[in-house]
């Protein structure tokens, strides 16, 4: 069924069950280190925006999701061949670092840049 693969050919049944805003996408999310119970050792920043990825990875993986061909195959297998094979997952693709000022248990003060702290884009894998 070409409609299931080529993104410019939509399948009638496809249109009903996956609207655009359900598709895999990045969701902004802000927390405080107090909510994580870490504010007794993190001096700065107060707020942290890890963001998260959520949504359905349909067969029509819209452009820009950086998904490998494998994701399309897996979604077809899941739908047409074997339902026990899960649909691809919506996960972060690019990350941003974050600088944290914290207190170590010996009382030293540490400035440190941590990689992979903020989700910047999503992908279906």
């Amino acid at each position: 069924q070409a409609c299931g693969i080529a993104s410019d050919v939509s399948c009638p049944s496809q249109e009903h069950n996956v609207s655009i805003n359900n598709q895999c996408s990045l969701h902004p999310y802000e927390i405080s280190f107090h909510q994580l119970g870490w504010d007794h050792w993190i001096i700065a920043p107060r707020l942290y925006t890890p963001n998260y990825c959520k949504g359905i990875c349909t067969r029509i993986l819209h452009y820009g999701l950086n998904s490998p061909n494998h994701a399309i195959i897996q979604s077809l297998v899941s739908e047409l061949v074997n339902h026990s094979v899960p649909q691809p997952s919506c996960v972060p693709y690019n990350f941003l670092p974050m600088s944290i000022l914290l207190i170590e248990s010996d009382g030293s003060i540490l400035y440190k840049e941590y990689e992979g702290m903020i989700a910047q884009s999503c992908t279906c894998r």
Partner: protein
Amino acid sequence: KAGLPSTALLADNPTLPSILDLAKEASGKEVKQWPQGYPLRYMLKLYQRSADPLGHPRENRTIGAKMVRLIKPSANTVRPPRGSWHVQTLDFPLASDQVAYELIRATVVYRHQLHLVNYNLSCHVEIWVPKCGTKHSPSSKSGSSKPSPTSKAWTEMDITHCVQQKLWNRKGRRVLRLRFMCQQQNSNETLKLQGHGLTSLDVAFLLLYFNDTDDGVQAKLLARGQEELIDRESSFLVRSVR
């Protein structure tokens, strides 16, 4: 406290970002005490210069390091006065994650002016490491090229060479000992500073700047790989000549 992954998971997976290791450690141990005074202000200024309010590292940051540790002295002893000099010895423990991080710079920030009730003192520090004599007169400029965020009473002195050459690669527990020496400005009278609480006063702290050794390790691995490749090729060449 938010649930943390079980320590077994953390322990099994040493490559987890060290923030989780720290969280595990910190959630277990309450921090001794929240820092205050000039050391905290110094690091807050360094942080604000290096990251925006949401913690995103600034593109134009100038610290040139991925990690900066401010270490306060673990021991601070007042020595018997020597003539007109007041002397304190300060011990700084050099804990290190040598595997993951490479020391790229070390400085000591100290008070070069000390105003007590009836004394105005001029101070400097000396490193207690053989053949590492560094005697500095007060100067507001730090040894480094980068403007250090010190106030007019504090000075930053670069001691990278001493720490890297003499201490950093030593085995076992490594302690950097400094002598903090003060003299009354324009007077040679003997100082009687007992009771001024000098051992609890922040008079100096150490700053160690680190970078990840990842690329360092990568570079070394590549270099070693290339060496092996070259060795094999050269022996191959010898064989083909035979």
